[in-house]
């Protein structure tokens, strides 16, 4: 199955972007991908993933997009009237983009020769650690992407939205590169949205580089109405004194895998990652987090809440690596999970690797059911059992939604959370 997958992938790569500035990289990545053994259950980091859902289907770049469906998917985000760069099934879509004025953002295809030259240098420098097969595949298949540059001292007032819309079956491999200079600020929201019943295969990769003393708020939502497979990678690198806040949500989709890497390469960095994931039906979601503390005096905090109902399966793996030089590190990881049925499954594993001796590290991971005492409390006040269950489940997720400072952006996830509970009640 892997072999068939690989050969269709290599064939599909022939149809990827023919931009000359990318050619060398693409060939390199395609060859590396071709030589690499694809992960399967025997590989520790993939042991809970049923990759037959991925390898079972041929790789084929999406050709026929549906603009009407894209318009509908984009509506709520465009209604925020903020700068937006939109890709539809991996290709830049000018019609659904609102290019920012005070902010330097562009699709790869529309970028200048100078930008291409710098992209050719920087793409992959953060995301490609460990030669991850799916990052290489993204590079082999990439057709277009979004480049965001915030110069030193700049702090655009508006948040920037990147829409990655899936309207038709097939593979897309969009790419995002965000570079933020020194003493700058940025709020960026990535939306990976898949329309109802679209058998998409999405391989998005985002890299963020945050310069000294800058602040970035990064929202990343992967929301599918039903169907779709998504293997995503985010790699963020922070320089000294920078602050990075990420808010992740994964809902819907047959198969979701997100590898989120945070590399703290300067002293006095502050990072907070919040995330929620919810699976039902036959859905599968796996979030792999890797936080690397390379230098002293950095604080990182991760708060993740997961939920699985029906036959849903979720996996959370939170790895915090505190290198030898990273004295005076403060690292905190909390992952709580709620099982809403007996057939649902959640596996969680915090992995702490600590090589420095003067650090504060706290982690907690739990999988449980709704607290019967809390349920009784609600019922004793007259709230019927089912309503009490959904109030508590919602409350559980709400902790993450409330952590998002821009409630208008959070509001793009809430309807999906509501729908999750409503659909459960309907059975």
């Amino acid at each position: 199955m892997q072999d068939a997958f690989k050969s269709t992938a290599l064939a599909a790569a022939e149809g990827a972007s023919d931009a000359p500035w990318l050619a060398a990289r693409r060939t390199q990545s395609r060859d590396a991908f071709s030589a690499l053994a694809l992960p399967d259950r025997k590989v520790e980091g993939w042991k809970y993933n049923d990759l037959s859902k991925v390898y079972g289907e041929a790789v084929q770049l999406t050709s026929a997009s549906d603009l009407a469906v894209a318009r509908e998917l984009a509506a709520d985000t465009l209604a925020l009237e903020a700068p937006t760069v939109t890709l539809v099934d991996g290709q830049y879509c000018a019609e659904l983009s609102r290019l920012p004025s005070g902010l330097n953002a562009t699709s790869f295809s529309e970028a200048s020769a100078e930008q291409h030259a710098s992209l050719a240098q920087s793409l992959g420098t953060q995301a490609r650690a460990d030669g991850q097969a799916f990052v290489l595949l993204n590079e082999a298949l990439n057709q277009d992407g979004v480049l965001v540059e915030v110069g030193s001292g700049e702090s655009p007032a508006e948040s920037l939205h990147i829409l990655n819309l899936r309207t038709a079956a097939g593979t897309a491999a969009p790419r995002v590169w965000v570079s933020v200079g020194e003493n700058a600020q940025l709020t960026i929201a990535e939306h990976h949205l898949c329309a109802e019943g679209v058998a998409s295969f999405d391989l998005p990769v985002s890299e963020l580089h945050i310069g000294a003393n800058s602040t970035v708020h990064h929202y990343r939502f992967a929301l599918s109405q039903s169907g779709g497979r998504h293997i995503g990678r985010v790699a963020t690198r922070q320089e000294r004194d920078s602050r990075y806040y990420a808010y992740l949500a994964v809902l819907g989709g047959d198969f979701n895998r997100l590898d989120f890497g945070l590399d703290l390469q300067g002293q006095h960095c502050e990072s907070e990652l919040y995330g929620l994931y919810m699976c039902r039906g036959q859905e599968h979601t796996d979030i792999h987090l890797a936080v690397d503390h390379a230098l002293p005096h950095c604080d990182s905090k991760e708060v993740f809440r997961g939920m699985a109902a029906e036959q849903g399966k979720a996996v959370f793996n939170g790895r915090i690596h505190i290198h030898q030089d990273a004295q005076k590190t403060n690292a905190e990881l909390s992952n709580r999970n709620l099982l809403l049925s007996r057939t649902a499954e959640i596996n969680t594993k915090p992995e702490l690797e600590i090589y420095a001796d003067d650090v504060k590290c706290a982690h907690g991971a739990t999988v449980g059911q709704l607290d019967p005492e809390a349920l009784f409390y609600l019922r004793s006040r007259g709230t019927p059992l089912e309503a009490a269950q959904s109030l508590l489940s919602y409350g559980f997720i709400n902790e993450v939604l409330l952590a998002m400072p821009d409630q208008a952006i959070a509001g793009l996830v809430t309807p999906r959370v509501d729908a999750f509970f409503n659909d459960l009640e309907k059975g």
Partner: protein
Amino acid sequence: MLSIENLQASVDEKAILKGLNLSVGAGEVHAIMGPNGAGKSTLSNVMGGRPGYEATGGSVTLDGVNLLELEPEERAYAGLFLAFQYPVELPGVSNMEFLKAAVEANCENRGVEAPNTPAFLKAAREACAQVNLNPDFLKRGVNEGFSGGERKRNEILQMIMLQPKLCVLDETDSGLDIDALQVVADGVNSMRSDDRGFVVITHYQRLLDYIVPDFVHVLSDGKIIKSGGSELALELEKNGYGWIEQEVA
């Protein structure tokens, strides 16, 4: 209005309530006192239908309705309210949302019209003022990070909003400073009426200075072993429970 007859209940297969009788008429306030572990909280938990607290015999009826056959929420619709000794936290569930869901469910099931949103908000803010909680508490998670005293005041706030027929207060006075005690007592007194009954479980006579009971009962080893007027509380405060337990033995 409330009639408890020969109530027996076990927790973890251990008999805790051993034939308890109590009758509360409309408009009355009954205080229940008794040593630790006597079964006071168990009584309120059995009345409320808390999981793990099943009655094994006897009956509890409220205006003719057998509470023991009902689900916990149905007991609320029948008019029962329990103020808990240890109210739990509901993280992420806002107090406002929680109160609204409860008020609406009670109205619907009692066949009265639920207040519209502005009326509800007004009532909620007034209830806050009455128990001296900043209205900001309405936005916070239910009991989330509340101090002990704030939780107890939040219980009284819910009682005011839900307008029950019979209120059972389990040690609502424990752990309160004197001002909070006054607030709780005022809350209860403001709700005293001819068609509402109260059962106030307490260890301290001082609460009964503020909420003057019509009857005082001593619960010991799963039974009411002595009943009297408000003067009984003073006697208990002075002499403890030993003399009654001996008198009964």
